[in-house]
């Protein structure tokens, strides 16, 4: 019996010791699941969040905002300003064991440029990818593109052989609901491989044995149970009961409670995402208002009146529970083009606003329908509800229609809303991204999220000119000029930048990333 006890003791000691150095499992809860596993099918935050664990881009953006060499080791512009040269990392393997090389890069970029790809808008400046040798590629762009590396941080690398063998060379047509092998299966170079996946319920990932980053990164998490818990109170309850280790979408009202709970902590940080109101400034007449024959939003004075009537501080305090930073711009301080002067929230002045509205010819205000999502941004419905009384005191009667994001976004994209709430993040950290999606006239690949019908041909030309301007100071001056015009026009009413709160067990430390995309490979387990 003695030897048996000894053996058990030794075993126990080994397990304890192993526990001290080895990785731990984690259950990670979010409001919504990734829409698909096809890496080029959807340019959506929660989708990227899961994708970044399984697949990898050439260049990664760290939570500090810095660019980090990942599958590409270096990137430089060659003597030809339209050609970028990138050296690739050697010895990288996909989950199926295939080696990663230049052919995979050329294949993946071409795939991401396909018509059904949602990533094509970001990298549309790429003309073609040329393989120089197995670990060197040239990116030929349509014109000089100084910010190409910033645009590649969400373009994932796939295995050419695997894609061809599994008949998944074409990107999933998400709108037509035509799926392919890559929607439910994955083969990336990332730190975690997919063990099982049940859409909208649970995805199980495990640390990939052949990962190139072993020894270079903490890799403190061994298995990930990525679960979807839609209801705020259920998600928090799961964390409090210990069932979940990490909640990425922490409801603002419960932060204090979790902070006060033993064994739990909350990491706070600013997100690269601004929340704002948009309105139809381009139509001759609005359908949902009570003004006949003209569009009140077309009058700049009306927009400016609304801008100074909104009490952003009040929203921060009551609705956001201090988890927001009131803003005067629709981009955050991370983004190139932001200035503190423009980004300062305008002073609240209901009297002046009322006078401006009277001057514009609406002394008694008007009525309008306001569309709002209720499951996309932090306290989104609460923000809209708080805005309505502020407008009411101005005389503007806003009828609030609050709906799920599955209904809200199509409403905007189909041009059916004349007054709405939207949030916008800038993954390239450059104003051009916001300009081309939100301000450029809606045509071709431009303006797909510009539901304001704002159209300024002169400005459009200047926005398009940005992508080929290589002289950085000149380009920055052009960006500043465009902002000057837009801020004066007040096409959007900026509200605030979101702050993010990640809640987790005390032995974990997941830093808040401005993109709200977590890279679990950088997380160490302390136990």
């Amino acid at each position, binding site marked *: 019996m003695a030897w048996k006890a000894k053996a058990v003791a030794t075993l126990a000691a080994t397990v304890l010791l192993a526990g001290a150095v080895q990785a731990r499992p984690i259950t990670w809860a979010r409001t919504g699941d990734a829409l698909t596993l096809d890496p080029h099918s959807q340019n959506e935050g929660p989708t990227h969040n899961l994708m970044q664990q399984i697949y990898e881009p050439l260049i990664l953006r760290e939570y500090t905002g810095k660019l980090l060499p990942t599958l590409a080791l270096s990137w430089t512009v060659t003597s030809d300003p339209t050609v970028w040269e990138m050296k690739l990392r050697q010895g990288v393997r996909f989950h199926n064991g295939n080696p990663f090389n230049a052919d995979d890069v050329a294949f993946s970029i071409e795939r991401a440029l396909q018509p059904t790809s949602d990533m094509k808008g970001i990298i549309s400046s790429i003309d073609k990818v040329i393989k120089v040798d197995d670990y060197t590629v040239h990116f030929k762009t349509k014109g000089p593109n100084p910010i190409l590396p910033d645009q590649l941080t969400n373009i994932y690398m796939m295995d050419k052989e695997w894609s061809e063998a599994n008949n998944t060379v074409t990107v999933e047509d998400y709108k037509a609901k035509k799926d392919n092998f890559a929607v439910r299966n994955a083969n990336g170079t990332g730190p975690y491989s997919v063990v099982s996946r049940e859409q909208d319920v649970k995805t199980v990932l495990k640390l990939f044995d052949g990962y190139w980053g072993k020894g270079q990164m903490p890799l403190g998490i061994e298995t990930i149970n990525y679960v979807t818990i839609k209801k705020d109170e259920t998600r*928090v309850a799961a964390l409090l009961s210990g069932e979940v280790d990490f909640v990425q979408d922490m409801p603002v*009202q419960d932060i204090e409670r979790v902070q006060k709970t033993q064994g739990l902590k909350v990491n706070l940080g600013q997100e690269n995402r601004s929340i704002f109101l948009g309105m139809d400034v381009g139509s001759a007449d609005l359908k949902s208002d009570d003004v006949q024959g003209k569009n009140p939003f077309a009058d700049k004075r009306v927009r400016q009146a609304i801008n100074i009537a909104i009490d952003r501080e*009040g929203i921060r305090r009551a*609705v956001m529970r201090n988890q927001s930073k009131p803003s005067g711009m629709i981009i955050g301080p991370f983004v190139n083009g932001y200035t503190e002067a423009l980004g300062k929230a305008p002073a609240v002045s209901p009297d002046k606003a009322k006078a401006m509205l009277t001057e514009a010819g609406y002394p008694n205000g008007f009525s309008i329908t306001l569309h709002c999502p209720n499951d996309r941004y932090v306290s989104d419905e609460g923000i809209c509800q708080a805005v309505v*009384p502020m407008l009411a*005191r101005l005389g503007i009667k806003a*009828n609030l229609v609050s709906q799920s994001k599955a209904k809200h976004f199509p409403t905007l994209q189909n041009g059916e809303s004349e007054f709405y709430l939207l949030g916008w993040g800038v993954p390239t950290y450059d104003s051009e991204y916001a300009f081309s999606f939100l301000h450029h006239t809606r045509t071709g690949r431009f303006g797909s999220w510009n539901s304001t019908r704002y159209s300024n041909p002169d400005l459009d030309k200047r926005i398009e000119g940005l992508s080929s301007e290589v002289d950085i100071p000149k380009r920055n001056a052009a960006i500043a000029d465009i902002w000057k015009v837009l801020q004066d026009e007040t096409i959007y009413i900026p509200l605030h930048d979101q702050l993010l709160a990640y809640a987790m067990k005390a032995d974990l430390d997941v830093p808040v990333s401005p993109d709200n995309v977590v890279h679990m490979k950088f997380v160490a387990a302390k136990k």
Partner: protein
Amino acid sequence: MNDARLPSDVHDPAPGKETSATGIWRHRLALFRDSDLWQSFIASRLVMAAAILTALLIGAAFLAPVIAPHDPYDLKSLELIDADKPPAWEEGGEARFLLGTDDQGRDILSTIMYGTRASLTIGLCSVLLAVAIGLSLGLWAGYAGGRIDAAIMRVADVQLTFPAILTALLIDGVALAIFKRYTLEGGKFWILVMAIGLSYWVQYARTVRGVTLVERDKEYVQAARLIGIRPVKIMFQHILPNVMGPVLVLATINLALAIITEATLSFLGVGLSPTEPSLGTMIQVGNKYLFSGSWWMVAFPGLTLALLAVAVNLLGDWLRDALNPKLR
């Protein structure tokens, strides 16, 4: 019924001033006092308490614009600075907000009054719709039998596979396509009533059909058929009173269910606007604030709904027993 008019005229002639109409009413009241319904009502204190409670709640709801201390639908009066105040007796509470305020600075007490009005109207209308459809189809299926029965019940089975939310979204979509742009308040109200009503009729139809199958072979129905009474009359005058019991019980339970369904639909953007909260919406929003300690946001509306459901349920039970011909 013919002799009903007589006694008051004979025994208690109106002394000049009184018209014969009031005399009739007075007599009817006397008859009502003698009826089983009234006797069973005053016999049970519980039922009386439930009736008083229901009357109070309904009264408070429909007199809300007159008696509520604040008007939560008057958006101009809402101030964010008033948000999240606890009830008056708690630390930090204010006397002008007796039961505290919600996340938008609305007075909970006033919002409950206004919200109960919205919830009750939608709940009652949708339950009435469901009962009307379910009762008629159930009677018809049970009485006619054969192919009609099979057809109606298969439709009911199909309907049963659609959850209320799906039905509501369907109706919302169709309504939007037909009317292009419905006026917000009125349109939304009827869509809600239709959606909830249409998704709950099956329960009534199934129950009624089951009882009807049993009743239609009994002697009294056969007798009625023999003397040539029309089927519709047999169904509604002879069978109906015998199937009302379970229907009333179901209806009272479904009233509370309908109120909660309305809240779910509002979340999806099909229901009422969040700027005009119903009882269900208040509970749903309040749920979010339970962990943060703002218990009053869900406790008071929840209590109101629970009281309403219990009171209406008790009344339903009593009505079932009082009206059931088998218990006489």
